[in-house]
C-alpha cells in the first residue's frame, strides 16, 4: 500500500513540475537603474514579452519595450512612483511595485479612482471561487443531498415490498 501511495505522490509531484508560468524578477542595481528579467518557471526565456513602467500618479506609460533575446532589460528608475508590468498576453500579466531611486521619489502618489482604474492589473490564471461558482456549487450539493434522501426512502419502500412479497 505504501508503495502505491509513493507512486501516486511521485506522479503528482512530476505533474506539477510541468507548469509553464511567466515570472518577473526585478533587480535593484543601486545606481538608479533596475534590471527587469522575464522568464518562465521552466527556465525558458520570455523574449518579446512587453515590459511597461506605469506612473502610479497619472497612469501614464513612462517606459515600454519588449524583452530582447537575453530576456532582460536595464531601465533608468523614474522619479515618480511607478509600477512594473510584465505583459505576457491574456491571463499572463504580472504587476510589481517599482523600486525607488537612491534619492527617493520626487512626486507623491495622489490616489485617484480614475487613475487606479487605468493602471494595469495583474492577470494570472488563479482559480478563485466567484459568486456564480458558489451558487452553482450549493445547488449541486443540494441535488446530491436530495439524491441520498430519495435513495433512502425508495430503498425502504423496496424492502417493505420484498417483506410483503415473502409473507
Amino acid at each position, binding site marked *: 500500500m505504501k508503495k502505491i501511495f509513493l507512486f501516486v505522490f*511521485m*506522479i*503528482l509531484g*512530476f*505533474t*506539477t*513540475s*510541468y507548469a509553464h508560468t511567466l515570472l518577473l524578477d526585478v533587480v535593484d542595481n543601486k545606481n538608479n537603474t533596475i534590471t527587469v528579467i522575464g522568464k518562465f518557471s521552466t527556465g525558458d526565456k*520570455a*523574449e*518579446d*514579452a*512587453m515590459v511597461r513602467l506605469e506612473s502610479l500618479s497619472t497612469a501614464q506609460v513612462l517606459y*515600454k519595450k*519588449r524583452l530582447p*533575446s537575453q530576456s532582460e532589460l536595464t531601465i533608468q528608475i523614474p522619479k515618480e512612483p511607478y509600477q512594473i508590468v510584465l*505583459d*505576457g*498576453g*491574456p491571463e*499572463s500579466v504580472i504587476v510589481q511595485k517599482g523600486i525607488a531611486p537612491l534619492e527617493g521619489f520626487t512626486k507623491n502618489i495622489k490616489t485617484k479612482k480614475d487613475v487606479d482604474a487605468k493602471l494595469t492589473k495583474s492577470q494570472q490564471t488563479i482559480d478563485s471561487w*466567484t459568486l*456564480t*461558482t458558489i451558487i*452553482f456549487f450549493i*445547488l*449541486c450539493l443540494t*441535488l*446530491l443531498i*436530495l*439524491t441520498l434522501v*430519495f*435513495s433512502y426512502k*425508495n*430503498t425502504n*419502500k*423496496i424492502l417493505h*415490498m*420484498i417483506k410483503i*412479497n415473502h409473507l
Partner: protein
Amino acid sequence: MSHDLNPKDKKKVFRQRLQRVHVATGISFSLLMYVAVFFGIFAILLPYIQVWEKPSRHFQTADITKIDYSSMIEPIISNPDFPRNNIIITLPGYQHDPALKISHEFVEPIVFNPSTQKLLDNEKDQSQLAEFLNHMHYGRPFKTFGYLLFGFMAVAGMFLIIGGLIQVILIKYKNNGKNSVSKFSKWHRKIFTWVFPPFIIITLTGAMMNIGYFGSAPMAFMASSGKTAQVWNLAGPVLFPPLPTIEKKNDTVPMLEINQLIKKAKEVNPQIDFQKLTLINWKDSSALIKLEGYNPYKPFLNGISNKPSVVLSGVDGKLISHTKVLDKHWSGLVYDSVFFLHLLFGVDAFTRLFIAAIMAMSTFALGFGVLLWLEKKARKFPNNIPVYQWMGKLSLSIMIGVIPATGLLFALQWILPFDLENRFLIQKSLFALMWLSTLTWSFYRLNSYQTAKEFLYLGGILFMISPLLHFFNSGFSPLELLNNSMTNILSVDIGLFIFGFLFIFVAYKLPTTKDKIQNFWTNKL
C-alpha cells in the same frame, strides 16, 4: 490450489479468473470509459462545432488562392508595438476555421474575415463549447486528478479489450441465446471484436497522453542521467525541433509581400496545404518565413509532430530550407502514425464521420456490457419488485443522463447572450447541474426504463431545438447558410437535428414494463 489441478481444470480455472477480472475491471471503469467515448464523438467533430458555436465565424469561406493576405497582415506586423519575432499567422481553412488569425505568444490573437478583410470581434473565452466537449473527453475539467483518472481508465480499456479477445478465442460462446442476458453478451462481444483495431490504438494513445508523459518521468530521469525528469525535455527537441536562433542585423528593411512568399513556397512544394506561417526577425535583413502545413498525399505520416515546411528569406524569398514528410526522424514518423487515428489532424469529413461511427458503436458495446452486469443482478428480484440498485441508477444517470445535459449545453450556446458576464461559466455550470439532476431524478424514480425514456425525450428535444435556436439567434436561415457556402455550419445543425430525432425515436420505442422490456431486447437485438 491451482497447481494441484490437472491441465483441463487449470484451463477452466484460468478462463474463470479471466472472466471475473474482466467483469470486475469492466464494471469499475465502464462509466468513465463511456464518458470518454461519448464526448470523444463530439471531439472528433470539434472543427465543425467550433465554427458553428461562434457568430464571428459565420461568413463564407474565401478562396484561399485569391486572398490578399498582405493587406491584413502588414498593418498589424508593422505596428512598432507588435512583436517582431515568432509571429504566427494561421491561414483560413485550418481546422475548418474560415478566419485568418495573427497571433504571438505574448499578444491576444487578432482575427480577420479574409473575404472582407475586416477585423472580427473574436468571442475569446465567451464561447468555448467545442473545447469544453473535448476537455470532457479526457478529464481536463478535473485537472491532474482527471488526467490520471482518465489515463488509468484508458489502460484499463486496453486490458479489457485484450482480455476480452482472449476470452472470445478461448471460450466457445454461443450466439443463439434467446434471453436478454445472452443478447447483451453477444452484442458486447461482437461490437468490440469489430472495433478492436482502432479502439486499441485510440486507448493506447489516450493513455500515453494522459499518464504516459507524467509516468515516464522516472525513465526520463534515468535516461538523462538525472538531468531531467520531464520526458518532453528529451523528446520535444526531436519531435518539435525549435527554430534555430538567427542573429538579428538590427536594421529595418522592406519585406517581400506575404502573398508572394506563399506563391514561392507553393512552387517549392505544391503538395503541401499550407496552414501556418511563422515570421522570424521580421523587418530585419535576417528575416525568415517558415511556411508549414499538411501533405494529404502522405496521410498517417504527417500532421502532428511532422509538419512539412518551406523556409524562405523574408527579404527576397530565397529558399533557405525545405523539409519534406519523409525527412523527419523515424521516431517522429512513428509518433505521427500512432497518434493520427486519435487526433485526426488534416483528415476529411468522411474519415471523421467514420471514426465517429466507430466510437458511437463502442458506446453501444459499453452499454451492453453494463446492461449485462445489471441484468444478472436484476434476475435475483421477482417480477413484481422494481429493480432499485445504486449502480443501475448511477449508470442510468451517467450514460443516458449525459444526453439531456449535452443537449442543454448546445441549446445554451445560442440562448445565452454572448456579452453575458461569466457566460461560459454559467453554461458549463448549468450543464453540470442538469447532469447531476438526472442522478437525483434516477434515484427518485423507481422505474429506470421510464426514467431513461424521459431523459431520451428531454435530450432529443434539446438537441432538436439547438439548430432552431442557432438559426433564429444567428440570423442565418438554413437556406442562407447553404447559399453562402457555410455548409460546415449547416452540417452541424443537420447533425444535431438528426441526433435529437434519433433520441426521440428510441424514447418512443422503449417500453417501460418489465415483461415488455424482456421482449424488446430479445426481439430487437
